[in-house]
């Protein structure tokens, strides 16, 4: 065991006064969260391919090996099943491993460990232990990449009992959600919207911000519509998460110019779902569209639609519509814009829910 360094470098999220917000990209907010979590808890360690010297292919772990040493930022052999499998073992020894999967399409070799071990180990242990492993997956398309680098596998994990699945869309959410994931006892899959890694936002870091943070599984109304406006009609709810939150906000702005008000709900947590927040919005607007990049067929939108419809059936003026990827493998980058849901496609669905 070579421990190269032990003195943590200062957090990328800033200096002495933790409550002062810093402007960070989403990627750097994650760096800051990892850094601060590692500084706060010596049991937190990072594992993954190329995360050490290189700082990861997205540079999310940049500087962390220098700050915390090779034992806590582990460049692993190229084997996802074992990244997850050894993480389970480390967790059983009392560690809190954070596994980085390099790209969405490379998580599947680890699927058995995630679904049959990580997710089920707590039930198997029946109280005699926990496995608080965090799995970070940069996901989604729109970056002009080659095959397997643009997928949205979140539904596989959300359907898996025993896991928690989150998908922050803003730097601030990325920070506190990851910090919170690293203090609670259950396995968490973090879907990181890779094409938003470079989006900037204010981040309040540190313990203070955590104390004020909401529950890990609360949705966020990213753009509200007033009760009056909703009651007056011509309003709809758009449910989004991860990379499509930006799409929804863009659509909302365009819609507003045409007199249509969209309430944008950012799910943030995919499992469990904050159904209450979505249903409350659905009750007010009576019209709901869900948007994600994953194929529509059995995507998260199916669950949101089914659940919201069950809870708010008599408030709905139109069926919940879903906008998302098609039932084909993610296409070549040069035509991905036709695959990915954009504001136009979202607005088309909004028109349809408003027309009913």
């Amino acid at each position, binding site marked *: 065991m070579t421990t190269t360094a032990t003195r943590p470098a200062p957090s990328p999220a800033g200096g002495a006064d933790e409550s002062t917000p810093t402007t960070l990209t989403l990627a750097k907010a994650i760096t800051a969260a990892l850094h601060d979590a590692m500084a706060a808890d010596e049991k937190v360690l990072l594992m993954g391919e190329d995360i050490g010297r290189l700082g990861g292919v997205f540079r999310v772990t940049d500087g962390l090996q220098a700050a915390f040493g090779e*034992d806590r930022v582990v460049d692993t*052999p190229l084997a996802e099943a074992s990244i997850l*499998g*050894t993480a389970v073992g480390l967790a059983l020894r009392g*560690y809190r491993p954070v596994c980085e999967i390099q790209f969405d399409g490379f998580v599947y070799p680890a699927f058995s460990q995630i679904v049959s071990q990580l997710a089920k180990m*707590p039930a198997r242990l*029946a109280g005699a232990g*926990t496995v608080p492993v965090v799995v970070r997956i940069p996901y989604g398309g729109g970056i002009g990449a080659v095959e397997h680098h643009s997928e949205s596998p979140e539904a596989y994990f959300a359907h898996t009992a025993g896991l928690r699945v989150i998908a922050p869309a803003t730097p601030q959410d990325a920070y506190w959600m990851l910090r919170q994931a690293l203090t609670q006892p259950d396995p968490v899959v973090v879907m990181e919207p890779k094409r938003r890694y470079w989006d900037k936002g204010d981040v309040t870091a540190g313990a203070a911000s955590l104390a004020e943070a909401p529950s890990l599984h609360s949705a966020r109304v990213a753009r509200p519509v007033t009760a009056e406006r909703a009651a007056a009609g011509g309003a709809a709810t758009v449910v989004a998460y991860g990379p499509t939150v930006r799409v929804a906000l863009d659509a909302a702005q365009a819609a507003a110019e045409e007199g249509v008000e969209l309430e944008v709900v950012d799910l943030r947590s995919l499992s*469990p779902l904050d159904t209450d927040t979505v249903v409350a919005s659905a009750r007010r607007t009576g019209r709901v569209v869900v948007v994600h990049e994953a194929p529509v067929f059995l995507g998260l939108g199916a669950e949101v639609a089914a659940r919201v419809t069950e809870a708010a059936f008599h408030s709905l003026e139109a069926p919940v519509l879903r906008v998302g990827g098609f039932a084909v493998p993610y296409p070549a980058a040069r035509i991905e814009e036709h695959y990915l849901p954009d504001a136009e496609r979202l607005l088309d669905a909004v028109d349809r829910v408003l027309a009913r």
Partner: protein
Amino acid sequence: MPAATAEPVQLLSPDGVRQDASGDRARHAELVSGVGAEQLRERYRDMAMVRRFDAEATALQRQGELALWASGTGQEAAQIGAARALAAQDHVFPTYREHGIAWVRGVDPLQVLSLYRGASHGGWDPTASGFHPYTLVIGAQLPHATGYAMGVQRDGDVGTGDPARDTAVLACFGDGASSQGEVNEALNWAAVFQAPVVFFCQNNGWAISSPASRQFAAPLARRAEGFGVPGVQVDGNDVLAVEAVVREAADRARSGGGPTLVEALTFRVAAHTTSDDSSRYRPREEDELWATRDPLTRVEAHLRSTGGADDAFFDAVRAEGDELAARVRRGVREMSDPEPLSMFDHAYAGDHPLVAQERAWLETWIATEPEEAR
């Protein structure tokens, strides 16, 4: 260290003669020099108790008390030998057939049976016993063992020289499991990180109906060397030899010398499980051959011929075994089913609104079911 292609280590022949200690064997003999008559009686007692337990479990399954039973009969020497080579602080990652190791680690036999009864998924405390849950997905526990060992390294619990601190991890698997990618990955990781793991393969000749020849074309011990891990074959029906070989491997691991693979050549005397019928695929001659290599017989022969034990001892062990069987039988019959709502208890350790809601629904449902019934 012995070449992977050397003869399997044997210290006690099938007819109970302690093998003369020359060459490599001398080193191994030395490692169990502390195993005298008293300790051999202990080993014998362990093996006999576990075999009796196993027979009782099989009977309980036939009586409908268990959903299934995976017999370990024939593998007692491998399991007791390995378990007795471990220190209290060592950890074991078992398959679903390591009843002998569970026994030595002090896991309540009734907890093992509760799993096979379908009343739990295990549920013993690995912290207390150092014995982790049974793993049913073939090979999945090997990365766990390697990861656990990486944790041991990070805790500084290797190479301190403190015999109560330095820790080894025993990773159990079968000949069939050796074909799984994860098993090979774990071996490789342990080699790359020099993690303190003893890979312990009980090659019992069969993976359900597939002979070991369908799993590998070269001895597993050689496979290990291909990964840069010392590999050694041992007569898995010789409790002394297994203890010696695993002790050497565990010592190496604890001292910071990295992983070792031990391939114990043994035999699954029963069918794969009570659901299986080995007569469909296994030649009778094989059963007959291995009957001559029984792990208990040879220790008994040795103890009797050297005066290490007499009829009184064997009678006492038999009586104790019957007591265990009776206790186990009673325990299983009295075992109450889990509360239905317990299925929600440990899926998550933290709050989970959907689980809470579903739990509440089932609670009401169960409470009102009689009225609802049509």
